[in-house]
């Protein structure tokens, strides 16, 4: 009796060919983007999304063409943090991305929803949603990548949700990923969890850069600019064996700026945070360009 692999076609269901078409459309769209960079962390609450928008803005302020895909479907925050208008314009070549004041192009599921509305999917049954929810979320990320009418971008950041499995899932969609940025905070627990993500990322990326950004390393006093450590480092804390490209201090004025959806000026700003962002974005560019030299 024949086995699955003895039969070449799908008998007319057309599913396999449609999935292949989806992949082709995605790769064709990504072919117009120079560098796709995932921003990840196994741990939640370390500032992935904020780091993403700050880096994207810093690069845009240097004159690069930059985009962000908010891949945190259930915790999308880029629309709020960038202050972009919730509007959806569908054209033949795709859905137009929103654009921040700095010119960063953004696509997020939040653009399709009223402010404050949570993501809920139409379903014929609410039972056993675990069987399909992951699939529809991956489909949503694929569509945001493939069906957005991106400009010709220098860098596209993909802001991933927390979880060690997120990067391998993304690599299935985007095999051309250039690098992964791992965001962590200098706490023992964060290092413990993020280390797990790094080891999975190392297996998945097969030699492509894994770059560490340490967030909330210090606290900058808004009155006197004195720098204080936020976390006591312990000798037991696991070290993250990846190249660090920057340390971003916790800055209340930065938090307020982001909360209000305003653009943080990293080019002309004289604060410690602005300086850190300039250094970090420069280091990122070096790492992205290095393989091409």
């Amino acid at each position, binding site marked *: *009796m*024949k086995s*699955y692999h003895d*039969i070449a*076609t*799908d*008998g*007319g*269901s*057309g*599913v396999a*060919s*449609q*999935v292949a078409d*989806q992949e082709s459309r995605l790769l064709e769209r990504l072919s117009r983007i120079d560098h796709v960079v995932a921003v990840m962390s196994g741990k939640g609450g370390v500032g992935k999304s904020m780091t993403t928008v700050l880096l994207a803005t810093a690069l845009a302020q240097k004159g690069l063409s930059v985009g962000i895909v908010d891949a945190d479907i259930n915790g999308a925050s880029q629309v709020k943090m960038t202050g972009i*208008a*919730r*509007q*959806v*314009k*569908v*054209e033949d*070549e*795709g*859905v137009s991305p929103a654009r921040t004041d700095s010119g960063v192009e953004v696509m997020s*599921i939040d*653009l*399709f*929803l*009223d*402010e404050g*509305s949570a*993501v*809920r*999917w*139409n*379903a*014929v*049954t609410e*039972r*056993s949603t675990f*069987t*399909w929810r992951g*699939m*529809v979320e991956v*489909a*949503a990320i*694929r*569509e*945001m990548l493939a*069906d*957005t*009418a991106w400009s010709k971008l220098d860098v596209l950041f993909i802001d991933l949700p927390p979880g060690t499995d997120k990067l391998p899932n993304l690599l299935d969609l985007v095999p051309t990923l250039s690098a992964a940025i791992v965001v962590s905070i200098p706490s023992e627990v964060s290092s413990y969890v993020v280390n797990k993500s790094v080891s999975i990322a190392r297996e998945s990326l097969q030699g492509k850069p894994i770059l560490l950004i340490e967030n909330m390393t210090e606290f900058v006093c808004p009155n006197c600019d004195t720098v204080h450590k936020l976390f006591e480092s312990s000798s037991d804390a696991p070290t993250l064996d990846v190249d660090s490209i920057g340390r971003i201090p916790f800055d209340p004025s930065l938090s307020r700026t982001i909360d209000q959806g305003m653009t943080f000026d990293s080019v002309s700003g004289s604060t410690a945070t602005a300086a850190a962002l300039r250094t970090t974005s420069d280091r990122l560019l070096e790492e992205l360009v290095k393989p091409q030299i």
Partner: protein
Amino acid sequence: MKFLCVDCDSQMALSETRGPDQGSMTVVFTCKSCERQIAMLTNAQETQMVHSLGVKIGGRKSEPRPMETIRGSLVGAAGDGASAPDATPAPTATSAPDATPAPAATSAPDATPAPVTDESESEGKCPFSTMVVEGSQPQFAQPDGIQWTSEAEERLQNIPSFIRSMVKRGIEDHAKAQGVKLIDKEVMASVRENMGM
């Protein structure tokens, strides 16, 4: 997923799709050798899984619209094709860049989401109606593109039904071996001669 007729050891081909109805989809497959049919009946979770892939069973007649899964499946979305009972009005495409999200023109409590800017949107209200090929037309193809003339098919009907499938398969195998794409009365005569029928 592929379907195999165990008796014939031959792949079954999709011949019809029905539904989805109350969360269940019917997909009929036919054995191209013996014409036996089976129907795959999905439960709600299986229907949902197919829907989540963003594909149509039976293939597409037109290119997918941009972000059709998001716009068709997200409750309350701009472009929501499902209009869940409690769906809130979706943001419109005409909002000024600095404007807060504008509600749909009819902001009654049971208002449906605002119209999309994509005017080519023509899918039905049921989000799952997009899962099957439009028209549910039979997709059953003859093996390897072999066609029968109406005269040959008529002659085939003269063969007793209990043995017709086997004979048909034998004729098609013979035609395939001879590189013949169209079975007519001459081909049938040739088979009869070779097989001693």
